């Protein structure tokens, strides 16, 4: 029966992981805009883009904006 205890522990750890992921997703604003991302994903990357890795650069920018907004709120 000791296997049960282990399994229960595992299941709780995994479930808690999902809850934490969910809380993080909410707090990082992923549920604020539920429409635009569905459109955005369909845009083609421009072939003649100068940026080496445009997608990565974009992410940095988005974090920047979130950061700046947070600073302002404080």
């Amino acid at each position, binding site marked *: 029966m000791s296997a*049960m*205890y282990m399994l*229960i522990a595992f*299941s*709780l750890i995994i*479930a808690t992981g*999902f*809850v934490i992921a*969910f*809380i993080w997703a*909410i*707090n990082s604003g992923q*549920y*604020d*805009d*539920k*429409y*635009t991302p569905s*459109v*955005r994903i*369909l*845009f*083609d990357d*421009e072939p*003649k883009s100068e940026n080496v890795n445009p997608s990565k650069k974009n992410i940095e*920018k*988005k974090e*920047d*904006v979130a950061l*700046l*907004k947070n*600073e*302002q709120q404080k």
Partner: protein
Amino acid sequence: MFMETVETLQKLLCEHCGEDCIDDSIQSEEKLFCCNGCKAVYELLHEAGMESYYSTDVESPGVSLKEYKFQDYSYLDHPEIATKVLDFSDAKNAIVTFKTPQIHCASCVWLLENISRLNPAISFSQVFFDKREVTIRFDSSRLSLSGLVSLMTKIGYRPDLNLDKVQNPKSESSDRPLYLKIGIAGFAFGNIMLFSLPEYLSGNEGVDSQFLTLFGTLNIILALPVFFYSSLDFFIPALKSIRNRFWSMDIAISLGIIAMFFRSLYEIYAGLSVGYMDSFTMLVFLLLVGRLFQKKTYDQLSFERDYKSYFPLAVTRLSKSGLEESVAATLIDTNDILVIRNGELIPADSTLLDSIASLDYSFVTGEADPIQCSKGQLCYAGGRNLGTSVLFRAERPVSASYLTRLWNHDVFAKHESSSIQSISQRFSRYFSPIILGIATIAALFWLPTDTSLALNAFTAVLIVACPCALALSAPFTLGWITNLLSRNKIYLKNGEVAEKLADINTIVFDKTGTLTSRSTGEVVYMGRELSSDEIAMLHSVLHENTHPHGRAFYAWLKSNFPNKTRFQIKNYKEVIGNGVESICNGRLVRIGTAGWVGVANIDPKVIPHPRLYFSFDDQIPGYVEIRNSLRVGVQELIKNLLIRFKLFVLSGDNSRDKDRLSPLFSEEVLLFNKSPEEKLNMIQKLKTQGYHIAMIGDGLNDAGALKASDVGISISDDTVSFTPASDIIMDATSLTKLNQILDFTKDGVKIIYASFVISILYNIIGLAFAVTGTLSPIICAIIMPISSITIIAFTTLATHLSARRRELW
């Protein structure tokens, strides 16, 4: 011969915005455009290599720039205004969020998110589609705020900049806490269910005692965040209603939650069972989902606008040295000299300094025809200048003007007072005390024989009577009603509005813009037959005219005499208050008032409807009369409504349309020449007489009446444009469905009552177990989900069936 070739031509559509092109004179790279604005955008995008805009979503995604007028945005660089418009700024970067109602498709998102390619100073932009907002970060040392706004205006996305933006810092309401609460409750519910199942399935012998303690402890740990965080949504309102000495549904729910939680603690501690934690968390989860469902909001719409959203952010002022400068509208002082250009609004009550001006007050006062003002006349704020730019002298600051004084009235001061209680509120006033009563009686009954059984029965009643299904009835019914109505372009502020609408017995209409259409007048031509050349000449001269009568005449010509020929026009001249003249096809064409064209003995004050005369050289073939046309289907709607409702018409316009309305309405309910205050007072008077009123209007002059009525419905020709504060925003095309909508909301109330009956039946079954003290966790865990699912299924089905029957779905 010539006409034939014209007719065989295909319809010419603008490459940018997809609207009809009048001819093929505006071209770029073999692409056709309807106006130079559209062409400019195309060339701009083409140069930047951004043709993807035209292939991302719809065929021609652009916003038409026909109405585009250059505006001076330099006032935005004034630090005082800039700080209020910007979200954030430091030495290098600035972040700004604009409301751009023109956003309508994926191409818009693409263009605005790639706007940095049009100006390298922009480093980042992100669109929030549901809110029709775009957030832009730019280098403020290389690009000014006014430059950014100009760029956006140039590509067709003019940001919504008005007084509101400066005076009210935006308040962000977020759904985040609700999502968090639902997520946590759902997580706890799922896991607790797993730990409770072994006991339910183990039959009579029960689970091993060591597992019982383990599962029980885990259940408590999992339920704690639900009790202390997710349930706050019920505890806080319950406390509030206790303080206000009022029985609300939240009290019954909170009692049930508390009873379940503490009884479970006791049972787990005593080693009796794993408790009711599964029912408890499921209850909280389902109720919160119900709240989310009812809360569906329309981010792109605003139900709280006042005059500040209508007036511009800044105006042009003539400084003492005679230079034009942009100032914030709030800073206008008495005796300032203002320059009001074509299409701009007068921001404050002012005296006209130029000799004549033509002002359109239709939105502000309800008067359908433009007003001619002469020198020295006091003009009220809110008029739109239809002529060339004129000078005014401000008499009062913006906040003290005739129009804005309306918002000082009491009805705007007090907050939403729920004079009509919602059905659930009325119901719970009896429900909660009755449940507490039954619980006490059950406890008292068992007290002499068995104290633990008495406590058992008391908590069991509270648990099983917890109005889960009951509390879901109204949110799901009202949520579905809101949802189904929004598919018909009728947007409710919240679910309670649907309940109030079901209670209406009187409907008050505004005339201009509501019963009649604001844009299209009915045009009647009186005179001899016109030759095709003459029609072409009228076409050519009227093409550039901006006066509403001229536009109505032009629209009528276009639809009745389709004609692609255009003559060159020379010496075009527009005289405010009179008309236009031009030399066209070698003849002098004049269009305008009787006096302007040369018809004597016609007093414009005597004729019932405005007329436009026209002449070729000195020959006058006739005139057109422009009547306000009723919206399509209004006549039939009124006839149907009259059977069940009392109807009134409150118009700010004069009584010349009386003849057209009197066949529909009786004499004493047609009220004309009403000022905004009189409209408001009229509604309040009717309310004291016991009428439940729905006011339907569209202009700023209806704002007071909309607010004072039980349900304020504002009509809008396109749902992006300005609407005064109201409970419902309705697309004008849906006005004819008003009868069905009212029926539908009445059905909704019946559905709520029916689901009350169903959930009460479940409650009675549960109570039978409870009062005898035999309620076990497993019975609780079965009754609760079944009753909730029955209610959700029933309300969903019933609302959809009703919508189908009312032809709304």
